[in-house]
């Protein structure tokens, strides 16, 4: 698994291998085909509005999937992201609505609310990291703890009530449109750029992949494996925290029962379709973004052309399987 880079380099000398080509660029090709299909058949597709609708829908998935890509790069997984979103989404309104402390200055309290919510989310990520790195608990089980408890915590915080609000200072991150571009799309793009740079160009990025490729070897080579794991889970928590804020800002309401529900699976699907190995050692942020966009566009295409939501789920499942299978075929060669 860790030798994909070297084998791929060797294979480039060989003649054109269609299956490997498909495995490498299949998702991108699928995305292209979907775009062409939509341009021809879907009404009003080539409009700024369609672009905005799709981007705003996909952006929380992408943001969460960025953190997930890093976690999966180390060979881990984070099931708790949806619950962390719920906590962050519940906490922020509690602060700026003055439920916890009376609010004197709305601007200040919104700032405090955002920072506090994301900080708590990051700490919950650190807690996951502690379970995985220090207690050496398998990532699936370690993050299952917060998956189960986290949503409960959010529900207990809000007593299960819907928090409705109309606070433009806060909702700017979900509804603001500087230069006609939604703010959350800008946040997403910035996070994509930073994450892609970190993963490709920094020591930390290489350490993530080394840890996922062969943990023992990485440790023997002097890589602080434990610290790397702490960091990726914290990053994942951070990303989930931001996504939680965006979701409640868009909805003008925070429902602890629903915010981030099923997000862990959406994010993992995006990562897998994007070509990141689930066993770790290879990860691509751009791939994850393409994966998330492809899944989103498949859903949009089906729904815009009158296919019922339920059938779209079945197609989505088939696409995940097909993408992962193709990538495996490419790798086996």
């Amino acid at each position, binding site marked *: 698994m860790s030798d994909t880079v070297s084998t791929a380099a060797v294979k480039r000398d060989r003649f054109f291998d269609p299956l490997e080509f498909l495995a490498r660029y299949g998702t991108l090709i699928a995305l292209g085909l979907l775009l062409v299909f939509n341009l021809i058949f879907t009404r009003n597709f080539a409009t700024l509005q369609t672009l905005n609708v799709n981007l705003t829908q996909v952006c929380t998935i992408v943001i969460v999937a960025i953190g997930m890509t890093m976690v999966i790069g180390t060979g881990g997984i984070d099931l708790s992201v949806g619950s962390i979103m719920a906590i962050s989404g519940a906490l922020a309104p509690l602060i700026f609505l003055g439920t916890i402390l009376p609010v004197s200055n709305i601007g200040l309290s919104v700032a405090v609310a955002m920072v506090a919510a994301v900080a708590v989310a990051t700490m919950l990520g650190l807690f996951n990291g502690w379970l995985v790195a220090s207690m050496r608990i398998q990532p699936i089980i370690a993050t299952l703890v917060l998956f189960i408890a986290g949503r409960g915590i959010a529900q207990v915080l809000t007593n299960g009530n819907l928090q409705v609000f109309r606070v433009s200072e806060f909702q700017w991150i979900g509804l603001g449109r500087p230069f006609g571009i939604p703010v959350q799309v800008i946040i997403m793009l910035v996070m994509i750029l930073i994450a892609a740079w970190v993963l490709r160009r920094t020591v930390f990025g290489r350490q993530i992949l080394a840890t996922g490729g062969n943990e023992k070897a990485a440790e023997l080579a002097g890589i602080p494996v434990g610290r790397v794991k702490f960091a990726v889970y914290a990053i994942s928590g951070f990303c989930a925290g931001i996504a939680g804020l965006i979701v409640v800002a868009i909805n003008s309401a925070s429902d602890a029962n629903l915010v981030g529900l099923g997000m862990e699976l959406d994010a*993992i699907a995006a990562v897998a379709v994007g070509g990141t190995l689930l066993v770790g050692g290879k990860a691509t942020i751009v791939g994850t973004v393409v994966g998330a966009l492809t899944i989103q566009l498949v859903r949009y295409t089906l729904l815009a052309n009158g296919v019922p939501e339920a059938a779209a789920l079945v197609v989505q499942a088939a696409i995940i399987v097909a993408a992962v299978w193709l990538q495996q075929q490419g790798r086996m060669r």
Partner: protein
Amino acid sequence: MSHKVNPARLIGTYGVALALILLIAFGWWRYENFLGMFNVMSVLRYNSMFALVALGMCFVIMTGGIDLSVGSTAALGSVAAAFGSYYGVVPGLAAGIGAGLIIGVINGILVTRLAIMPFIATLATMLAASGLALLLAGNQSVSVSYETGFTNLGQGNLWIFPIPALIAAIAYVVGSIVLNFTSLGRTVLAIGGNEDATHMMGLRTERVKFLTYLASGGLAGLAGVILAAQFGAGQPIEGVGWELFAIAAVVVGGTLLTGGIGSVGTTLAGVLLLGILFNMLNFENGMGWISLSAYWQSVIRGGFLLVVVIIQAKLMTRNAKPV
């Protein structure tokens, strides 16, 4: 790990049974009617669905796999069973289990033939089963027939025992026999221990793995039948989060997620532990000293899971040292 008596391993295996007994003793001491016939039977009745799902999950996990699709499969099974219930008890049962088996077959093919990682394969079938359930049911719950006696599968009693609990009990007895006394069961554990070695020994690893996914699907379908019978309707959106609850129960029961070690009996204890925690929360509220909303149940379950996995991790590292 040797098969000589190892105190740490012993605590790991029997710890869950001990914890269950302590919890029940605590409940008996603290709450009136906790061990009353009505409460015991309703806990068993309600948790039988989760017990069935966890049993299938236990087998899959023992081979080192995972099955995320069980919740949606149960939902699909409940819808199919609701349609089948109009033709009688057996058609209802057959429809639910059959729907589950179909998903199980797909999982088995994806994992063994196409060699797709279980996590991704069953994640996909989870979406697909959920979509199929919604399509089949037309996005709403489907009422079962009350004439054919189908609802007895969920609400009926045989003497004093709830029928769903009896079904679950039979499933566990069969599961335990298969695991401990058949070559199939031993192969399941061998695959989880070391799949390559098992394969080289000439055992049919792929076929056995296929069978575990088939069993998990079938049991999830059966859980769906009971769900439909208990609540009087096939529910396409039920079952959300069941897979993770089942995994938690299996883990609490001491089965290793890496496979190779596991027990059917302690899985049942794990299900009951998590179920009784919820039941005790209701009693605690009933006493009026404190008023914890139902939302606390997931916090408490999560906290409980945390304690269990930390204890297991401590035991494991102590076990690992001499090796």
